[in-house]
């Protein structure tokens, strides 16, 4: 196999252009924050509301984050830079969760039938699933409590 980056980087001075260096040695945290948190989100047939909910938990445990901590330390220049702040703050976990909850609530009120697959509607439906998911769980929990 040819060196995949050779073509693309042929114009770069070699010292400044490490070949695609991630490969097997790339830092797992760097990979996870990209493949879990970034990338295009489109609704799959297998509805992975996990990506919205459970994975946030994983991210919390593994990677988390704190913009707050950086702020505490005075590394907060981006907040005062209007050119940079609009796109940069959207990805805090709290905001993401708040947005998801709001959308779930809105969907619950609409109570539209969830159709199998139609573009953005399916995407919205996906976000509604955690809500429908919660009920059986809590019933399970009640059952356990009765048993105890």
């Amino acid at each position: 196999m040819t060196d995949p980056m050779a073509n693309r980087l042929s114009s770069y001075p070699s010292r400044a252009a490490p070949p695609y260096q991630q490969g097997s040695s790339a830092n797992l945290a760097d990979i996870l924050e990209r493949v879990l948190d970034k990338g295009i989100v489109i609704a799959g047939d297998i509805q992975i509301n996990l990506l919205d909910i459970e994975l946030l938990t994983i991210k919390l445990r593994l990677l988390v984050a704190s913009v707050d901590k950086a702020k505490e330390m005075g590394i907060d220049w981006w907040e005062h830079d209007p050119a940079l702040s609009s796109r940069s703050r959207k990805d805090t976990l709290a905001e993401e969760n708040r947005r998801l909850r709001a959308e779930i609530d809105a969907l619950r009120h609409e109570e539209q039938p969830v159709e199998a697959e139609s573009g953005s509607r399916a995407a919205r439906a996906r976000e509604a699933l955690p809500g429908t998911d919660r009920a059986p769980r809590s019933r399970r929990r009640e059952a356990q409590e009765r048993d105890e």
Partner: protein
Amino acid sequence: MNEQVTYVYAVVRAAGGAADAADAADAAAHLAGVGGGEVRTVPGTRGTALVLAVSSVPEDDFREDALRRHFEDLDWLESVARAHHGVIEALAARADVLPLRLATVYLDDDRARAVLDASWDSFAERMEHLAGHAEWGVKIYVERRPAPAGPAPAGDLSPGRAYLRTRRTERSVRESVYRAAEEAAARVEAAGRRHAAERARHRVQQGQLADAPGENVVNDAYLVHRDRAAAFHDEASRAAEGLPGVRVEVTGPWAPYSFVTPPTGAASPAEEHAT
């Protein structure tokens, strides 16, 4: 029970805006995907300019309940994440790609094709925007180190006063190192303004996976055109020069994971003029 389903890695466009994605198909031909399945391409019905890179995976592993379990298993998650990333990385070396989020799975190729068709225009538009660019990660760390061995704990100080003095020294060392980190961050930002098209912020890495020495205080990604990559890399890498206790780590080039979704909010004036 062992049905195969279609795992989608990325939308791919032949590099250089070639008429079809035959190159991308070639690039995919020998890749092993998640679970070892061979990567192949699925064209849309609207042409071959864009294709999906997919592979078959066992449904048993990717049903919702299975995924729920698997995602709690770091070893499984790591192997899938690395395989996913490996495919995207190899494709990105030869073509323009829009990476999909991990574990986007369809019942079969036709279902995946329908999604490509439905989002064709927005994929094409974003692809055009990202063409020729790569993502570079820049992390800034401050050293987690004890106060430098200053004057030896003076024998004439009470233990309490010696403790307080040590704490005071520690604190002032930490404050100065954070000021230095701020300076490094400003330099990286300046390099970004000179050379990058967009910036995305990632959360600083703190958890069990953040094994790099020091404390991560900035974790950003920049979208940089290949003509500017050398200059950006060079300037960003040197951002901590003369700043003791601060370290800058530049990673990349990455496929433009952090930039496949347009920045939220109003489009930038430059973008509006361009169209």
